């Protein structure tokens, strides 16, 4: 390649890195001396380095740092390996204070609690997280990550104080309910349950100790009926302004069961916790606007727009703000 033949970016980049052999390098330089377009390309290449170097690298967010501390504390605990319980239960509120993550809880206790309590405490996600707090993996010698060995022992020990804390948060916890829950916690949340979302729990004898509450369906999200006709641009606005003013629906409405079905479908798809649902329209078509926390601290939500009959997405799920 000489004379009026131009060089491609890759060759020029290799020249800049000193990767070309002496002869080729000389040819390219001779060409560059007379070719402005190739000189421009070379400047573009240099600019890439400058732009990359100038891109700020943010410090680790406090939430991530806390999460890592917690994971390491858990690791230290498992290493100590004694069969004795924790000297003191972890302070979940403190640990999770700044954490931007809302992970679906993988343990079944909070879901039950929420179902029992949500008539009075509709914000299920306010229940302290009791799921196994960290997903651990090990870098094996070849550099791949393999899942950490399962540690049922630790999980079991942590389940107790966490459930106790959750129970304390329940205003109406009756003696019967708490006893059941604690007994439940004892099995250490073996296996993983679906995200603690959404299904209105059918009232049943053991879960509704007081008869005056048996008519109420409990749900873990706020259901509103704004009848607002949403558009894509409206959904890019902070959603709280649109959903919050509409009055929350309580108890039975003829559509509540169908809504619950769709919420459950959405949460199974997204693996996130649904916290608000609005019955409205999307571009003139009947729709459910389903909001799940993506990053609660950052008020980031995933918005699913589904038709209320078949629960099919009416548009691609997207990120929005609350």
């Amino acid at each position, binding site marked *: 390649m000489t004379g009026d033949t131009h060089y491609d*970016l890759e060759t020029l980049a*290799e020249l800049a890195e000193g*990767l070309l052999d002496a002869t080729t390098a000389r040819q390219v330089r001779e060409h560059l*001396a007379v070719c402005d377009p190739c000189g421009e390309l070379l400047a573009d290449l240099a600019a890439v380095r*400058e732009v990359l170097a100038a*891109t700020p*690298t943010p410090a680790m967010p406090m939430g991530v740092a806390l999460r890592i501390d917690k994971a390491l504390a858990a690791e230290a605990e498992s290493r100590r390996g004694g069969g004795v319980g924790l000297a003191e239960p972890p302070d979940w509120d403190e640990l999770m204070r700044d954490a931007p*993550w809302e992970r679906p809880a993988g343990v079944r206790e909070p879901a039950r609690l929420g179902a029992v309590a949500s008539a009075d405490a509709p914000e299920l996600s306010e229940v302290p997280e009791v799921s196994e707090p960290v997903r651990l993996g090990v870098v094996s010698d070849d550099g791949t990550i393999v899942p950490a060995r399962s540690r049922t022992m630790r999980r079991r020990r942590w389940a107790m104080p966490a459930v106790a804390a959750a129970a304390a948060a329940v205003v109406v916890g009756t003696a019967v309910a708490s006893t059941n829950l604690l007994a439940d916690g004892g099995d250490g949340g073996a296996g993983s349950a679906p995200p603690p979302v959404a299904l209105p729990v059918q009232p049943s004898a053991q879960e509704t100790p007081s008869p005056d509450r048996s008519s109420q369906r409990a749900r873990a999200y706020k259901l509103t009926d704004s009848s607002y006709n949403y558009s894509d641009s409206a959904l890019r606005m902070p959603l709280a302004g649109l959903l919050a003013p509409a009055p929350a629906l309580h108890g039975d409405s003829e559509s509540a069961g169908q809504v619950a079905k769709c919420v459950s479908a959405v949460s199974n798809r997204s693996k996130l916790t649904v916290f608000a649902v609005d019955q409205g329209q999307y571009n003139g078509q009947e729709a459910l606007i389903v909001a799940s926390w993506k990053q609660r601290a950052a008020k980031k939500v995933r918005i699913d727009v589904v038709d209320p009959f078949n629960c099919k997405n009416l548009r691609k799920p997207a990120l929005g703000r609350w």
Partner: protein
Amino acid sequence: MNSPPETPSAAERPAVTDAELLTAHINGDPHAFSEIVKRHRDRMWAVALRTLGDPDEAADAVQDAFVSAYRKAATFRGEAAVTTWLHRIVVNACLDRMRRKSVRPVADDELIEAAERETPLPDQTVEREVSMEVSAALKLLPADQRAALVLVDMMGYSVEDAAQVLQVPSGTVKSRCARGRAKLAPILSHLRNRTDLNRVSSAKGAELRDG
């Protein structure tokens, strides 16, 4: 690693090196490893965030890496710097995640990221905008080129240091960087005019032209 300095607060902790902390950790000092984490977490975070381009993924990767380092401390051999060793674990955790992600069929994250790009926050500064464009552009590169560019061009490590972290020859790092830059140049060239980069790059160009 040539930059930034090994310890953020050299004045406060003049005596204890990373290697000493690691030894203390192996010998059962319960606080030694947290000190190592404190010293290096920001850089590990930066590497993971830039390599993966997604804060959730980066957090998982850094956490996995630190937990793994905690467990494997005893296998650390003193011939490499502790920082190099930590970087290696973090980068491997990232690369592993990228490999797994490329197999996963779910395009949910991409959707959401696309939405994020379409919905710039109102308080966005030019700097943040550039940062997002860079992130998006880096994602178009193959994993090995991305990792090399993050270490060399973004984090400012020498080619030799990056080669140690990536466990490949220096020439390979150079060639990955060159190919990566060649791919990024058309995408990022418009940013050249936004800052005062012109001056620098022309000088560099002239220098290369003149041999």
